[in-house]
């Protein structure tokens, strides 16, 4: 559909959970009744001032919101073009944007009387956020994590255990994030009556993509206000990294109808987006299919078998992407690009050196794209990149790639 035929990009999804042809509710019958009751509960909560009052209180006093919008002056000087701002969601409690969404889902779970929370995690940030909020509310928490990720994200595994969560290493399939999501879904089907599945990204069956987006939209809402205060106008370009796409959707959504705002999602290009498929760029290197409850762009072979993604960043290592991104891609409202591991590692180091901020490998991808475009943009061009997570968890991975011996 051409751009000018759409009145608003902010009305989705429709009553069937569709963003255009994407999204939907592709789940087994056992889960359908629960999905429908979750949708009803979320619809009630959305218009309930007491729900948002509780969210706002916890966002402020527990998470530490609003996160700053920070002008990266030395980075800007170094790049010599556009003014680069960072939305500092890595300063949130637990060190990433994930907790914005977890709080919302756990409050909903409590409203629904669910006592057992399950989650999947890749890099471990969503798992840590879920374990954190469960500890705060005294809820039982089980986190499914691919065995491979358990190995490369050991600090987060220990954090989750300290917080009282049970971490289940997933060995089914190939033991990655998508397999962790499969095992979480299997747990949910088995324990559907008392269990709430806290999904970490804007994917899964309706209403998850919309619900997670709404919770993460606090990022973009704050950015609007803060940029108004700083520069007296809207930003010109938004840049965010995309695995499933929740930090990006959170930044982008409040700006979708501001046509002057250029929106760019950055996928993980791994070793390069080509026929070897050693990447996680679902939009740049995949095609539409159905997985984990929704239709979206997926990495798959000709027979519809799902392929493993590949990225240096465990948080981007997912063969799909949120359905709303697929729609924004197809209607042309947002642009999607890929950044390789090598480029992300360079951006990681530059950010440390110039700004004194150790970024997670996920936003390092966004930063790498900023480094590509900023030099050619005018000095009054305002870029906001989403610094969606801090890099403490990644220093071991980075050290390995840089050939630094971490043994003490």
């Amino acid at each position, binding site marked *: 559909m051409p751009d000018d035929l759409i009145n608003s990009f902010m009305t989705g999804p429709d009553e069937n959970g569709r963003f255009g042809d994407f999204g939907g509710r592709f789940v087994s019958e056992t889960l*359908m009744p629960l999905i429908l009751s979750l949708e009803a509960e979320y619809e009630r909560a959305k218009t309930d001032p007491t729900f948002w009052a509780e969210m706002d209180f916890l966002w402020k006093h527990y998470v530490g919101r609003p996160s700053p919008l920070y002008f990266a002056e030395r980075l800007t000087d170094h790049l010599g073009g556009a003014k680069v701002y960072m939305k500092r969601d890595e300063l949130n409690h637990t060190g990433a944007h994930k907790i914005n969404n977890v709080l919302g889902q756990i409050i909903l779970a409590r409203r629904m009387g669910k006592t057992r929370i399950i989650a999947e995690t890749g890099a471990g940030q969503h798992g840590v956020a879920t374990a954190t909020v469960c500890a705060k509310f005294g809820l039982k928490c089980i986190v499914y994590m691919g065995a491979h990720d358990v190995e490369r994200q050991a600090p987060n595994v220990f954090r989750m255990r300290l917080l009282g969560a049970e971490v289940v290493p997933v060995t089914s*399939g190939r033991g990655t994030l998508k397999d962790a999501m*499969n095992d979480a879904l299997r747990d949910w089907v088995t324990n559907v009556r008392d269990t709430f599945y806290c999904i970490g990204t804007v994917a899964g069956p309706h209403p998850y993509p919309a619900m997670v987006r709404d919770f993460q939209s606090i990022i973009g809402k704050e950015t609007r206000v803060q940029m108004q205060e700083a520069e007296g106008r809207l930003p010109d370009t938004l840049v965010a990294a995309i695995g499933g796409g929740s930090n990006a959707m959170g930044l982008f959504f409040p700006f979708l109808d501001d046509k002057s705002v250029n929106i760019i999602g950055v996928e993980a290009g791994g070793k390069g987006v080509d026929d070897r498929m050693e990447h996680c760029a679902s939009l740049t290197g995949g095609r539409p299919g159905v997985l984990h409850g929704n239709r979206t762009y997926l990495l798959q072979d000709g027979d519809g078998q799902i392929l493993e993604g590949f990225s240096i960043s465990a948080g981007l290592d997912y063969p799909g992407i949120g359905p709303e991104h697929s729609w924004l891609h197809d209607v042309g409202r947002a642009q999607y690009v890929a950044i390789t591991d090598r480029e992300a590692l360079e951006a990681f180091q530059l950010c440390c050196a110039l700004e004194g901020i150790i970024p997670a490998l996920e936003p390092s991808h966004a930063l790498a794209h900023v480094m590509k475009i900023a030099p050619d943009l005018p000095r009054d061009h305002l870029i906001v990149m989403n610094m969606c997570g801090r890099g403490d968890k990644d220093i071991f991975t980075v050290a390995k790639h840089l050939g630094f011996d971490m043994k003490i």
Partner: protein
Amino acid sequence: MTRIDAKFAQLRAEGRRAFVAYVMAGDPDYATSREIVLGLPGAGVDIIELGMPFTDPMADGETIQLAGQRALAGGQTLDKTLQIARDLRETDDTTPIVMMGYYNPIYARGVARFLADARAAGIDGLIVVDLPPEEDSELCLPAQAAGLNFIRLATPTTDDARLPKVLTNTSGFVYYVSITGITGAANAQATDVGPEVARIKAQTDLPVIVGFGIKTPEAAQAIAAVADGAVVGSAIVAEIAKGRPVAEVLAFVASLAAGAHRA
């Protein structure tokens, strides 16, 4: 009338319950799998459920997950799965074949092309785990229009208010999932299942077949006794996984069929 309808008419006339067997196409390899499928009618199987391997079988337990992985590692494709059905049809034109699996491999082929290929291969019905009634326009309605049965799963969480939605557009039979869980997990209990089957039968004239958690001839008998038939999948697949010779696998299937037929 499809082969499924004809089969149930015949079973009703003979006063027998149906025994339905599930195997994963291509497990442990194409040739062995083909030999097993071709032997199922002779082992007393009334309806064959032919599993379509998928990388991400989110409703399946470990046994069937691993079967799918073995099949895919052996190079199983949708075309090869359809070939097994075609081969069976050369000698058997009455035993219904129901393809069971997940939507993406079907979607990847294209629904219209898939339905034409399935019809041509002698497939009679489809069970697609991740297509609830809310997504009927995707495959269910086109499949029925193409003359294939679309068999829906009803589960313990499908309450009376929702049941009509599940039964609408279901044809062939209703597959009642005996437990809230994945395949091959908990044991189905006839005392739980009986009232649930009665609840479904109060709203439909379609036969109700029960699956999930049935592992022995005794269980097949007990469950079939309170329904129109029983499905066994994981227990058969587990025998195949042990590398048993085809004759032994088929002997085990025959013992399950005899159990269900005693009901």
